């Protein structure tokens, strides 16, 4: 018996190899066809002059160079950074405030509210966009209807989606409403992992809630705060659904994002090469942010 097992170990185990291949095959088949091949293709197409029907012609980095004189692309790029900046400055403190108070004031009321804050996050973006139009529509939206009822002419005249200066903020407010729930539950999960002794020590030292938040909680979850900042930034790179459905990037280029420019170039103007180049830029930027994220992770583990 023992010798039989030994010879089995020495000889190559074909049944194990087949087992491994069969179990890995479905995942790699799908990933290979629908992800890895398209990734390689994106790089290739981005170097081509390629449109829907015509032949592909190699033009080097011309698509990339051309992009940097494309007004819409530049506006999209600017909005990435604006969007990222304001989400970090507005969404993170707000999410932290809600997460901190919900974990520190444990009344029955607040326990009930906790589930509410995440509700808007599970709504599909099409529904969120629909709600946005429902509220901001210039002719019969909720705000205009309210203004008419109250007789507030000044409010009725505000065009939340049509005014280039306001449109960005209207979409941003809508996105904050939709996405802030993730930050809240992420911070809550992290705050709840802070050792109870730290809190008790703070109470003994006579710290009030705000000192406790400032000197214990923020340093303890600083890693989660930084990760959230990066997720906001990567999220602004990928932004497409909401601004596309609410304002289609307009008026002018005031709410254009990189995703919208890519979609327009690729699927409305049929400029595959240019669209692929934008795809590569989105990828490279998100790769850069991911590397920053991993270095943060390593730093926090040390």
């Amino acid at each position, binding site marked *: 018996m023992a010798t039989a097992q030994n010879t089995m170990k020495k000889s190559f185990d074909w049944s194990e190899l087949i087992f491994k291949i069969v179990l890995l095959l*479905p995942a790699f088949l799908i990933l290979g066809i629908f992800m890895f091949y398209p990734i390689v293709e994106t790089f290739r197409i981005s170097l081509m002059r390629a449109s829907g029907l015509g032949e592909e012609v190699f033009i080097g980095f011309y698509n990339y160079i051309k992009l940097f004189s494309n007004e819409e692309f530049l506006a999209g790029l600017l909005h990435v950074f604006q969007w990222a900046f304001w989400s970090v400055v507005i969404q993170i403190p707000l999410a932290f405030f809600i997460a901190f108070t919900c974990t520190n004031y444990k009344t029955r009321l607040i326990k009930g509210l906790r589930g509410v804050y995440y509700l808007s996050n599970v709504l599909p973006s099409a529904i969120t966009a629909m709600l946005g139009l429902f509220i901001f529509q210039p002719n019969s939206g909720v705000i205009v209807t309210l203004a008419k009822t109250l007789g507030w002419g000044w409010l009725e005249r505000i065009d939340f989606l049509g005014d280039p200066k306001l449109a960005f903020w209207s979409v941003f407010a809508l996105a904050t409403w939709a996405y802030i729930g993730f930050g809240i539950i992420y911070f809550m999960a992290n705050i709840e992992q802070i050792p109870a002794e730290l809190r008790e020590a703070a109470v003994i030292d006579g710290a009030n809630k705000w000192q406790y938040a400032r000197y214990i909680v923020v340093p303890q979850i600083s890693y989660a705060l930084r990760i959230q900042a990066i997720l906001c930034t990567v999220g602004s790179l990928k932004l497409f659904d909401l601004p596309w459905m609410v304002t289609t990037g307009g008026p002018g280029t005031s709410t254009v994002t990189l995703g919208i420019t890519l979609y327009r170039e*690729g699927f409305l103007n049929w400029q595959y090469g240019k669209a692929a180049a934008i795809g590569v830029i989105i990828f490279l930027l998100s790769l850069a942010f991911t590397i920053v994220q991993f270095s943060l992770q390593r730093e926090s583990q040390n």
Partner: protein
Amino acid sequence: MKLQPDLKMTGLEDLEESRKNRPSLASVVIHLILIILASAVILPLILPFLFAFKTPLEFAYHPWNLPQQFRLENFQIAWEAVKLGQGMFNTFIVCLGAILTTVPPAAMAGYIFSRYRTKVTNVLFYVVMAGFFVPAQMVLIPLYKLDLKLQLINTLPGLFLAIATFGIPFWTMIYRSFFSTLPAELMEAAKIDGAGHWMIFFRIMLPLTKSASILAVLLTFMGAWSDFMLSLILLNSQNLFTLQLRVSQFMGQMGANYFPQYAAGVIISAAPTIILYIIFRKKIIEGTTLAGALKG
């Protein structure tokens, strides 16, 4: 151990007690702010109910009154205007397809990556993991061309396979760490009893993944249900349009003058997700924090 009784003597308990009896001003203010913020979340979802049951005339004259009658015409009009029923059916197929092409492949791959760690499988695992960081925007053009080539464009499988490809890396990682938490003795014992690789996986390991699999099915369903961008690009004939694509047509179809119908449309299209959230709140939040922890 000594710390506990000492703590009680410092008056920590009394502090908590007094807070309960006589709420401080700060606590009242914070409660108020939290209630206002929570209503800001819910209000846009409640407001449609004020308008959805009204005739255009009733809406024009008394927009803020409670509806006089529970008229359902607006719901019927909204439902038919963009054929929401057909949209829901298509979305349901996409969800089902996405679940079948995401969860089993991820579970199988995760099992290999967890229990058969060799140099080769480790490298392959990193390859899968890299897929987690690829933004869908990056591959839209080739994905569209590929579906065209494979004659999958404008078909529901073309869509759910694309959705699956962005879900597989995440769930492979989850299954890998899940299988790693199962005791190794389980596998050893089965081996001694003469069970082969297949038997161990299908009869012993797979039944133990129930909790992870429920999470995977639920969140894959939610993801496929919510998808907009991939559907927009890969589907182009009306009768295949998913629920979300139809929802996004609402404004153009109905115009701004049909506000009560629009409100009815909001209610119909938001309801399934909200009901799902109410039922599975804990699971959904668990899954999302899992994703966050992984990203973090």
